[in-house]
């Protein structure tokens, strides 16, 4: 049994998930690859969204993959950091907006 939960080498084995369920695995990868094709959004814009979401999901594999992917597409460090701040802003905003729920409850319960 490996000593850590995450191993960078496992990222390269992502495709192996099809071995235990070929149909669903293939469907997933077909969908995944289609999503990242050039469309109404450029592949570059999609890569930046993916980078931000990788951070909000705190997925080390995704961060590894999309840091490299955005670099490949000529994205600058400044653009990458701004994208992550967008993710962070939504994360913190999502936490804080629930404060309204807390306030509503307090206002209801408090005399």
């Amino acid at each position, binding site marked *: 049994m490996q000593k850590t939960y995450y191993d960078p080498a496992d990222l*390269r084995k992502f495709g192996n998930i099809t071995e235990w369920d070929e149909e669903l695995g293939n469907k997933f990868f077909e969908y995944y690859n289609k999503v990242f094709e*050039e469309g109404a959004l*450029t*592949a*570059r814009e999609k890569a930046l969204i993916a980078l931000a979401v990788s951070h909000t999901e705190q997925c080390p594999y995704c961060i590894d993959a999309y840091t*490299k992917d955005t*670099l*490949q*597409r*000529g994205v*600058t*460090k400044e653009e990458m950091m701004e994208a992550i701040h967008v993710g962070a802003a939504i994360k913190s905003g999502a936490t804080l907006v629930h404060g309204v729920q807390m306030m509503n409850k307090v206002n209801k319960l408090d005399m």
Partner: protein
Amino acid sequence: MANSKRQLEILSNSIFQNGELPTFKSKISETGQFPLKAKKLEILQINVGYMCNQVCEHCHVDAGPDRKEIMTRDTMQQCLEVIKNTGAHTLDLTGGAPEMNPDFRWFVEEAAKAGIKDFIVRSNLTIMLANKKYHDLPEFFKRHNIHVISSMPHWTKGKTDKQRGNGVFDTSIEALKMLNNIGYGKPESILRLDLVYNPSGAFLPADQSAMEKDFKKALLDDFGIHFHNLFAITNLPISRFLDYLIASENYEDYMYQLVDAFNPVAVQNVMCTNTLSVSWDGYLFDCDFNQMLGLPINSKAKHISEYNETLLEGRTIAISQHCYGCTAGAGSSCQGSVA
């Protein structure tokens, strides 16, 4: 890493020796593409010397101001004999900074007389402003209808200077404006100006056409600069870039990227099959990278003075693991993507 023997050892050991990754030979054998054979010569690429005014981090030539390897006029004369008689449609002068060879202008003037369809000079741009004696290079290029191809790793100063040295971006922009001002790179102009993008780190280039769009928009919006095409070139794991990969502990991961991105379609059009590379001292190689690795050509004609089309056509191309760099993704060559 100047020692080519050591580089070839590194490229053949570890992950390729223990079977973790397939060698290039076994990979192209799987698709029935081994041995790789040379086709009819289309591009003659001549390296006129390793001297350069820049010392770029990724340079596979290990070029710089202190390099003394310079092609002599005698060797150039031998090249001219071949240029006049070969059916190659493209002549491609490279270096170092080719313009620093003292016989560069003489060579261009003589070679231009041969009426080659596409006469390329790979200019690093900054040479045009490095010294007063180079300031008229754009006019000189125009006079001989030279196709200028120049490196530009990014449309921002930070990324460009990091790879090519402080101040290179600003000087390159100035040189591009000089070229634009006399007609180079303008949309309808016959004066061809292309840029070469190669990644500034241990990653592969993205899609060439998407990168070209981004480059064109940024250079036009920010500086009013025009150019024709962008060639996205993969950094091959040799020389200074190999040093960097090893020192930054990116070597294995980079080789995995290259092998994972192997594209058999790109193999059909790799540049070594239609190109001949001539070193500063006149020796023949399958490509510029093999030249730097000292991988000898598999032919009895080993020197430009021994050039013989019959002996060279159909030769088996010398390969090693660095060749994965030309077959990754859309493929890579001195003229950009190949697949």
